[in-house]
């Protein structure tokens, strides 16, 4: 098994677990407040990482800024999702629609990173995206 695939599978397990805890959280809290506490949990995790690992701060300003933008993008992606649901969008439509985002990443990666996919990989990506949409429905 390729190393990157092993990491993908481990990611699926951890993120898969978040689906359960998120559901248990939103049984008692609004989605917004649950997101706030989700973000707060990043403080001890990242602080622990900062102290436990010997982090080298030798990155350029550009790279640091690009990395910092990750959290902003995650937040900026989540916020309009709440707005769409609050404006009357049905979760059964909005959530699967947003689950199409890997398609955009694929197109951007092909256009800007020079990545290429063979016909077999295209089939796999297509099936993964269709599966993602089906799995995102309640």
């Amino acid at each position, binding site marked *: *098994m390729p190393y990157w695939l092993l990491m993908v599978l481990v990611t699926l397990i951890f993120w898969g677990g978040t689906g359960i805890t998120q559901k248990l959280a939103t049984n008692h809290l609004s989605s917004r407040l649950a997101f706030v506490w989700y973000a707060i949990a990043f403080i001890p995790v990242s602080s622990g990482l900062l102290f436990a690992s010997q982090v080298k701060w030798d990155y350029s300003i550009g790279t640091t800024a690009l990395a910092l933008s990750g959290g902003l993008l995650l937040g900026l992606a989540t916020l*309009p999702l709440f707005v769409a649901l609050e404006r009357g969008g049905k979760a059964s439509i909005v959530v699967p629609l947003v689950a199409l985002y890997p398609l*955009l990443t694929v197109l951007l990666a092909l256009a800007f990173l020079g990545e290429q996919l063979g016909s077999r990989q295209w089939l*796999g990506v297509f099936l993964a995206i269709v599966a993602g949409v089906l799995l995102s429905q309640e």
Partner: protein
Amino acid sequence: MAYWLWPALVSLGVFGLWGLQSKVVSERISPTMNQILTTPGLLAMALLLWLRREESSQSLATHRIVGIGNAFLTGVLGAVGNMTFYEALRHGKAAIVVPLTTLYPMVTLALAVVFLGEKIKARQWTGILLALIAILILGG
């Protein structure tokens, strides 16, 4: 266009961009550093949400603690998953890793069956089947 569609499309677009950004950053810095640097931006957005919150539920204090505890646990699991996601992106193509990692509801469904006693619907079974085929094809 429906009033809710615009924000939904913005969400789709920004998540798509995040996938690309994650790949570019993962090639330059370690997953640990990436996770650390992701935190301030996410907290800033969470603060914005907290300031605009409209908490209508009158949950009992104990229920709120359960909710907060689970939301917090979501963040811990999410953060650890982020690091393995960044590590996968370091070594794999974004065009493959990002679609595969969005299949995580498959694991959620399995856990929901075991721990919450939920039943899987036909549509979700189809999703699981397609997801497994996709993993086999892309991992082979």
